[in-house]
């Protein structure tokens, strides 16, 4: 009991230690929304919530189609309520009235104009005009201050809302894409990867092993960022990818393939890819005479019985060196079939009798059908 409590306490402590980590995925990506630097400080905190209405200052918001549109108010817009801002130019001397909005400006210095970074997303405010501003900009709507660029809905909020309202959720709806529809994933300062909450954790340290389940369940998800060529470079490739074939692969692949770690079958076929090379190297029993280098002794002194036991658990590796005639030479006399085969073979014999006919006479397998 004490031991269990101690383990639980350690686990809780570890969780608490890391609980604050990784939370950046909940916020706004600075690659997608590079921070802007407005020339005014804490502007929303200086106004009562709803007074004035958001669109009174951000006049073009409801008609804006592009995320790059400049929606921040100009001095002329501010002058509607702040007459002291009327007619101000960059050469106008800075007064205390200026400082009340633009923050502390040293004597004799000018106010630095704000800079507004171009977002790397697609966002038409016009399409979202019916939503309250507070949905995506809660701090501003509540009259609270927020650091520039952080009072904006993150992807999780956008995705959940799109799902709820049956709006498009394809990646290209919001993300920049190339002409062929593939998402732009390399943006100044960052490489974009899918968030863990979308399809589970991806692109981590074990991704080479674990990506098959995600790709198999939704290849369109992968295709949002990767072209056919990206997948083909490994699965159809002719140049060995080092991540999946570590070390001195020519030397170590024999053991690795029998251990099925990494899995070979995603990219290679035993009877074409593997057998061709093994014949050339002289490993296969039917290698040409000039290249036959083992004189039939590749398996050393291991007995056929032990080799066949191993074949039972890893026949794919056997098929990488042996063609069918290798097996027929022994199994013409030794029954290779599993127990209960005679009850199961009828369907195979009916679908494709050619496999049966390689060993059995016509009469034998026809009776099976």
């Amino acid at each position, binding site marked *: 009991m004490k031991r269990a409590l101690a383990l639980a306490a350690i686990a809780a402590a570890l969780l608490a230690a890391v609980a604050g980590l990784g939370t*950046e995925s909940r916020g706004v990506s600075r690659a997608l929304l590079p921070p802007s630097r407005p020339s005014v400080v804490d502007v929303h905190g200086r106004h009562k919530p709803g007074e004035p209405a958001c669109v009174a200052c951000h006049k073009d918001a409801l008609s804006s189609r592009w995320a790059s549109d400049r929606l921040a108010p100009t001095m002329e817009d501010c002058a509607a309520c702040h007459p002291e801002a009327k007619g101000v130019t960059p050469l106008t001397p800075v007064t205390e009235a200026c400082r009340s909005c633009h923050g502390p400006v040293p004597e004799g210095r000018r106010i630095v104009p704000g800079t507004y970074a171009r977002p790397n997303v697609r966002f038409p405010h016009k399409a979202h005009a019916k939503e309250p501003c507070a949905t995506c900009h809660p701090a501003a709507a509540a009259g609270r201050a927020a650091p520039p660029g952080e009072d904006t809905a993150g992807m999780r909020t956008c995705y959940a809302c799109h799902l709820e309202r049956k709006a498009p959720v394809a990646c290209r709806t919001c993300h920049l894409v190339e002409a062929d529809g593939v998402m732009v994933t390399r943006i100044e300062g960052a490489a974009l990867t899918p968030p863990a909450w979308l399809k589970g954790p991806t692109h981590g*340290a*074990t991704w080479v092993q674990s990506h098959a389940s995600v790709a198999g369940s939704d290849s369109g998800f992968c295709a949002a960022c990767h072209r056919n060529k990206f997948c083909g470079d490994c699965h159809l490739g002719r140049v060995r990818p080092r991540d999946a074939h570590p*070390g001195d692969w*020519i030397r170590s692949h024999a053991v690795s393939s029998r251990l099925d770690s990494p899995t070979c079958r995603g990219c290679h*076929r035993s*009877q074409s890819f593997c057998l061709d090379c093994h014949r050339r190297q002289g490993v296969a029993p039917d290698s040409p005479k000039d290249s036959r*280098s083992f004189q039939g002794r590749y398996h050393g002194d291991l007995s056929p019985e032990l080799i066949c036991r191993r074949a039972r658990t890893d026949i*794919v590796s056997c098929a990488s060196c042996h063609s069918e005639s290798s097996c027929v030479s022994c199994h013409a006399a030794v029954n290779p079939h599993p127990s209960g085969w005679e009850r199961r073979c009828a369907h195979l014999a009916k679908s*494709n009798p050619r496999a049966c006919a390689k060993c059995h006479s016509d009469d034998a397998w026809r009776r099976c059908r």
Partner: protein
Amino acid sequence: MRPRLRITLALFLAAILGVASAAAFDQQITSTLSAEGYSVPRADGTWIARRRIVEDLRLGAFNLLPGSADPYYRGPRLSVELALRLDTDFAVGGDESNPAMDSAYVPGLTPVHVDANVANMSAEGLWQGALDVRAGRQIRMGTLGFFAFDGAETVVHLPIGASFATYMGYEVRGGDLLGWSDLELDGTDSGGRHGLTADRFPDREDPSLRLATGAELTLSPVAWLDAAAAVQAVGLNGPIASQEVGGRMSLGGEPILADGRVVWNAMLEVLGEADAELAVTPIDALTVAAEYHLFRPTFEGDSIFNVFDIAPENDAGGRVEVRPVSAVSLAGWGFARMADGSAGIDGRAADALVSGAGGGLGGTYRTLARSLSLRLSGVWEWGEKRLGAEAGAGQAFWNRRLWLNLRLSTWHLDDAFSSRLAGNLAGYVLSGRFTLTEGAVVVGEFEHYVGGGMEQRFTALAILEIEVWR
């Protein structure tokens, strides 16, 4: 010319000619030229040289319909893609590729091979967004895995979060004109007999066209449910080569995600594959997962490898991933392979519960300017063993135009089948990637390994990648 190649080329030409007069569309040309040299040792002390040049040329035309290049365009989209590959090995001897040379000929070995990976036209969003069509040579990835074929696929998107895909065509096989074998059904050597007499390589067959068809229904009515059921048959125009039925389901999301997939081989009446995973992500930075994998090798219908007594792989394991910040990923994983009830090649008793196990620790740190990686792994089964450690570091220079990478590794191998391959080895890979200009990148790599009772091994690789958009 084979019928399906004729159809494929005709569709491609029709697409090109038909839209030649269209308004401006986007064109992409990608060329990847690789040159690789290394040698493979034989047991008798001689070496096989490999001096390969591979050219991968891809052509694409996108947004062929007027107005479809607009970012807010929601109408149908039309595109055409073609990928050709030239694979040459200058070190292939004339005798090795000459069927008349009885003592040296290796079937399937050719100094030059040309194939077409894809050649198709796609139309998406037809019929008010409800229909997608793709025709030509294509590769689909679904519940039953990869399948490459020359034919057509249609996908109907239903309003309830479902879609129904159907496809039909001829399987792409290595022995076909412009064919390749990477994704064909395994089990027989169908690269063609090329005039060989019946006594030479009797298992090698001439390829035959195999008509295939399949369907897949996908359901995703709510965010926490994603399921699919699929069926596929290959060889409808002759002896059946494959019949498979499969299904998958994902339940949940965050913090708990359960995944499952099964594939039933209907021709052999065996369970071919089964996967299950339960992943818990209590906080963004941490994922703990339990996994189970079953794999029972199955082959195409012609193959006698299907009829042997085969024990499936049964692996149960798990992994832990920690992501303290977006640039860092740390992971640990492990699995145990259940024994099949027979005595082992290393004298293991028949009642042993476990026949093998494996695991490892790994971590990566990756930004646009720097990368670090470390990986320790070990796998053991039936007296065979592979233990290894790899460490890598990469650094970008000159405003990320130049990227240099060094990878060090050391391995210990125990091979129960061949003592020749057992031993320790170590080596390094030094690589560089330089951006010549926008759309042009050159990569160089040098690999050097020692140990394991063999002479030193070297591999040199150079790649030139060019991508042009217009």
